[in-house]
C-alpha cells in the first residue's frame, strides 16, 4: 500500500503544478489595465524598465500583487491541512488557533496608533499572532504534552477575546473604523514587492511539513496509535503547530483575514488525491495558491475600476463548493 502511494504521488503533484502555472499565467495576463498578451510577454522578456508606465503596471503593480496572493493562498492552504489533521476536525481552518485574531489585534493597534505603514503593520501583526500562539500553547500544555482539544478551545476563546478587544478599539478610535474594517476584510490592493518579501519568509515553513508527512499520516489514526507505532508525537505536534502558526501569522499580516481558502482547499484536495500527506500537502499548497490567484484576479477585474474585496470572492466561490462537498461527503 505504501508502495502504491509512493508511485502515485507524482502525477497528482505534476497536475496541480500545471493548474498552478495556468492560474499564474492567467492572473498575470489579465487585469483592469487591459495590457495585451503581446505587451505582457514583452514585459516579461525585457524585465523591469525604469520610467516606462505600462512596464511599471506589470512589474510594480500586477506581478507583486499576484505573487502575494498566490503565496498567501499557499500558506493558508498548508496551514489548513496541518490544523485539520492535527485537530482531527474537518471544520478547522487556519484561523481557529487564535493566531489570526491575535494578528488582527496587532494590526488594529498599528492602525489606531497610526503606524499603519510597512513594516510596522506587519511587525505588529506578527507579534500579535505569535503572542496569541504562545498564550494558547501555554494554556494547552499539561505535563510536557500539548492537549489538542484544550488547544482548540483555548484558541477559539482567545480568538473571541482578541476580536472583542478589536471591537473596543474600533469603537474608541472610530475615526479609524474604516481602516480597521477594510483590513479585517482582507485585500491585496496596493501590495508591492515589500509584501512579497514578507510572504516569501513563509516558504521554508510551507516545505517543512513535507518532512513530517509520514508522521501526519499515522497521527490521523489518533495519538495513541501513533505512539504505539513509534512516532514522536509531542515533537511532531510542536513542530507542526508552530509551522501552522507562523504560516497563518505571516499570511494575515500581509493580506488581512481572508476566509475559506484554508478551509476548503484541503477538503477539495483530499477528495482528489486522498488523505496521504505526501501528496495532500504539496497539492494543497499549489491549489491554494491557484485559488487565491484566481480569486484576486476576479476581485481586480469583475467590476473594474472598482474592486471586490477578495474575501468576498473566496466566500462566494468557497461557500457553495463547501456545501456541495459536505453533501457529497454524507452520501459517500
Amino acid at each position, binding site marked *: 500500500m505504501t508502495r502504491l502511494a509512493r508511485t502515485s504521488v507524482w502525477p497528482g503533484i505534476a497536475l496541480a503544478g500545471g493548474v498552478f502555472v495556468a492560474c499564474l499565467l492567467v492572473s498575470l495576463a489579465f487585469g483592469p489595465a487591459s495590457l495585451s498578451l503581446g505587451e505582457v510577454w514583452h514585459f516579461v522578456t525585457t524585465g523591469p524598465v525604469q520610467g516606462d508606465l505600462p512596464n511599471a503596471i506589470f512589474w510594480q503593480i500586477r506581478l507583486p500583487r499576484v505573487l502575494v496572493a498566490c503565496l498567501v493562498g499557499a500558506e493558508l492552504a498548508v496551514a489548513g491541512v496541518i490544523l485539520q489533521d492535527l485537530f482531527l476536525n474537518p471544520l478547522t481552518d487556519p484561523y481557529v488557533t487564535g493566531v489570526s485574531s491575535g494578528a488582527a489585534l496587532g494590526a488594529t493597534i498599528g492602525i489606531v496608533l497610526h503606524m*499603519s505603514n510597512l513594516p510596522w503593520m506587519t511587525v505588529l501583526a506578527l507579534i500579535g499572532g505569535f503572542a496569541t500562539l504562545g498564550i494558547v500553547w501555554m494554556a494547552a500544555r499539561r505535563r510536557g504534552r500539548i492537549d489538542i482539544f484544550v488547544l482548540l478551545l483555548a484558541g477559539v476563546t482567545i480568538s473571541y477575546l482578541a476580536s472583542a478587544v478589536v471591537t473596543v478599539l474600533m469603537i474608541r478610535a472610530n475615526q479609524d473604523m474604516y481602516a480597521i474594517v477594510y483590513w479585517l476584510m482582507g485585500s491585496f490592493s496596493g501590495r508591492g514587492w515589500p509584501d512579497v518579501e514578507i510572504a516569501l519568509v513563509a516558504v521554508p515553513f510551507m516545505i517543512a511539513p513535507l518532512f513530517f508527512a509520514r508522521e501526519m499520516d499515522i497521527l490521523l489514526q489518533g495519538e495513541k496509535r501513533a505512539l504505539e507505532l513509534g512516532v514522536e508525537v509531542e515533537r511532531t505536534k510542536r513542530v507542526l503547530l508552530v509551522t501552522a502558526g507562523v504560516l497563518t501569522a505571516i499570511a494575515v499580516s500581509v493580506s488581512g483575514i481572508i476566509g475559506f481558502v484554508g478551509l476548503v482547499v484541503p477538503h477539495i484536495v483530499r477528495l482528489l488525491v486522498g488523505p496521504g500527506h505526501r501528496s495532500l500537502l504539496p497539492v494543497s499548497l499549489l491549489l491554494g495558491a491557484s485559488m487565491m490567484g484566481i480569486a484576486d484576479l476576479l476581485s481586480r477585474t469583475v467590476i473594474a475600476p472598482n474592486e471586490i*474585496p477578495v474575501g468576498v470572492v473566496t466566500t462566494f466561490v468557497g461557500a457553495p463548493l463547501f456545501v456541495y462537498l459536505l453533501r457529497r461527503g454524507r452520501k459517500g
Partner: protein
Amino acid sequence: MSTTRPPRRPAAVLILTALIFAVLGAFALAGCGSTSSSGGEASPAASTSSASGPITVTDGSGATVTLDQPATRIVSLAPANTEIAYAIGAGDKMVAGTSYDDYPEEAKSLPKIGDFANPNVEKIASFNPDLVLAAGGIQDKLRSKLEKLGMQVYVVDPTTYDGVMTDVTNLGQLTGSTEQAQQVVDTMQKAKDDVQAQVASLSRPATFLEIYSKPLMTAGGETFIDDMITMAGGTNLGATAGSGFPTFSTEVLFKNDPDVYIADSGSMSKPGDITKRAGFDVLTAVKDGHVYVIEDSLIARPGPRLAQGLQELVRMIHPEAAPTQ
C-alpha cells in the same frame, strides 16, 4: 458591533461586507436625489423667520423640520454640524457634541454624546435638546428614535458644495442667526466665484484624490469632493468608478496616469510619502511634482471650511492660476 466577533467565520466576512456596502450605498443613494447646482438635497427655507411663528425648513433627507421658535439647546452628532453651528454664531446654543469635534477650539470642551458612528440615544435625550443635528448614512436609523422622544432632527447630508450652503442657510433659520449664516454663505459663495473665475479658461487636468491607500479608495461622483474638484478646474478620475467612495484599481490609476495626485490625510489615513511607493515614480503627477496632501477636514467634512478646502484644491490643481484679489 457584533460584526467583528469571529473574523474567521465566513458569515462575519459577509456581514462586514454588507455593512460596508450599506454605508457606502447610503452615501451613493443620498447622492441620487438631486445633484443640480441649485442646492444639494436640502431646499431653502420656505417660510419667513419672523420673530414669532413656526420656522419650517426641509433637511438633507427631504424631511420637513419645524420649530415653534429658534432652537436654544442644540446637540450635534457630527463634527461638520458642530462647525456649522459655531460658524453661524450658534455656538452658545450648543449643549453637546461628538468625541471627534475638534473645530473650532471651543467645541472640544463641549459635553460628548458619544461618537459619530455610535451616538448614545439616552445621552442625547439627557441634554433635552430642542434641535438635533444629525448626519446621513449610518445615522438614518437614529432619526425615528430621537423623534419618538420628541426631539426635532435636522439631517445634514449634502453631496454638493451648494448643498452645504443650503444647510448653512437652513440652520441659520432654525437657530435664529440668519444674518451670520448669510455671511458664511456669502464667504463660501465668494470662494466659489473666485475659484471658478480663476480656472474658467484653463485646461482641466486629470486629478486623482486618494481617500485611503489599502485598499485604494477615491471620491466618486455625487460627492461634494467630486463637486469641488470639478469647481477647482480638475477632472476627477474617481468619478469614472461610480458614486460615493469606491475602491479603485491601482492598475487603472496607472493606466489613466493622473496629472495631479492629491491624498487626503487626517485621522483616518496617513498617506505617507506617495512618491516613494513602488512604481509611482513613473506617474506624471510624481514626475512633475504634482503630488499633494490635503487635510481631510477641509474637503471631507461638509462645513464652512470647505471654502478653504476649495482654495487649496485650486492651488494644487492649478498652481499657475493667479489668485484674483
